[in-house]
């Protein structure tokens, strides 16, 4: 039976993640961009994506002696990040932290969204739907694996993905006209 990583690698065409580094700093450098981009697509907020990414890595680091030995540290990382994302307390925390920050400039994510229809279209989805499609369609996990990562049943993953697909059917790229 293939591991989650192997399946992900086959679906994404990447074999890089079969080589799980044993050193945390190497793991961090290897995975942070991928995680950050996934969280950007889920949250549509670069500050929140940054917070979630940092916190997920901190949690992984605290348990690295164990995480490095699990079958799929990358999956564990995404699971941790998604757990944090869905936490209502985490959201309140983020809001509280932001209130202490100086007025921020324009979110770089918004500038990308302005330019890219595909990114903008994802705003039509709920955060849960975005999380489901990012984990399954982009990261290549099965519904069962995505369910474990997102903390929901596999059927819920399939429902969310189906809902997302239906919503996006109504979205039509300008170039297609």
């Amino acid at each position, binding site marked *: 039976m293939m591991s989650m990583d192997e399946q992900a690698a086959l679906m994404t065409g990447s074999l890089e993640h079969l080589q799980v580094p*044993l050193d945390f700093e190497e793991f961090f450098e290897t995975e942070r*961009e991928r995680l950050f981009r996934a969280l950007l697509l889920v949250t549509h907020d670069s500050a929140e994506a940054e917070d979630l990414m940092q916190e997920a890595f*901190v949690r992984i680091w605290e348990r690295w002696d164990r995480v490095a030995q699990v079958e799929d540290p990358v999956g564990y990382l995404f699971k941790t990040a998604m757990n944090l994302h869905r936490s209502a307390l985490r959201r309140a925390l983020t809001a509280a932290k932001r209130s202490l920050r100086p007025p921020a400039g324009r979110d*770089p994510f918004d500038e990308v969204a302005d330019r*890219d229809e*595909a*990114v903008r279209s*994802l705003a039509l989805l709920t955060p849960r739907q975005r999380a489901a499609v990012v984990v399954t*369609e*982009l990261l290549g996990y099965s519904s069962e694996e995505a369910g474990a990562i997102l903390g929901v049943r596999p059927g819920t993953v399939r429902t969310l993905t189906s809902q997302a697909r239906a919503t996006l059917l109504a979205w039509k790229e300008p170039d297609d006209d």
Partner: protein
Amino acid sequence: MTDLNSLLERADRAVSGVPLPIGGVERLRSLRDRKRRNQRIAAGVVGISVFVASVWIVTTGGPSDRSGTPGSSGPVVAPDGPGKVGLVGLAPEGATPSSPSRGELVLSAFFAHSGGDPGRFHFNVYADGRLIWQRLGGGTGEYAIDYTTGWVEQRLTPEGVELLRSEALSTGLFDQDVHLVGGYIQYPGEVWVRNGDRLVRVTWSVIGPDNAATETAATPEQVNALKQLDARLADPASWLPATAWEDEQMRPFVPSRYSLCLESPQLVELARVLASLPQRAQDLLDGWDLTYRESTYSEGRYWCSAVTTERARALAQILDDAGFQHRENIFEVRYELGQRDPDATEVSLSFALLLPDET
């Protein structure tokens, strides 16, 4: 490839234009350390806690063979691999705890020598003369118990305490609390030193935490002063006079108290967390002062209590008897509970050593 898949891949390519957050591992380390500090505060403690209970020096001789040789027996352990020099975990039965159990901090320092934990050096001086220090090794496997000296205790005379305090004050950095940041700084660190009736705190890192209002750009002179202080504190035996030592022999610091923390990443109540424990453990914990705290940097919940070494050992024995596995690293001993049933509450129970000032 489905349309949805294509759409997401397009979006993924597009968001690659959003710059990655700066800071790297060092920023993570800062966040992680603050989280740990918060957890210790939950038990009424401040500072860094690391597990050590060891009879190493007594049983093996080790560096104690160098005792009484000024200039050669300071807290110097090769940062690239000190090897296992002490037991890590709960203090073994019969080990005599360091006395007194509490102590007033005069000087506390940690110096990082990498972006992460490898090479970190911690150094505490107490008014009662105790010098308690620890160095972490380097390389991969940074949490492996072989990569720490453990907390080591030596004894200073009042003159020695004052000489070390004066050494820190002579840098001129401790007039007020300050956080130094900037490109001259390579790795982070922190020093507390008693100046008059208060402990003045100086911290430094390449980047600041979040509050630019409290940060000061470090000058090359300040950075050099910190490096010199690091070198002096790392090897006090090389410059302290013989009269500064009451007992220069390095012995394992045996704590009299541990921080016990119950933690769950789920938003559950203490009763549910306690229900994950064996009945004997629940009975033992009944009446213990478990203080609830919400973490500043995670959504989990945890309850902590400062417990005697004997109580910690008794609780650990119950968990061992019940067949729960534990893991030890340089920071703690941790039992993962509720792992046998996927639907059970995820709970972990950890023990971390308390230093004399951590009350």
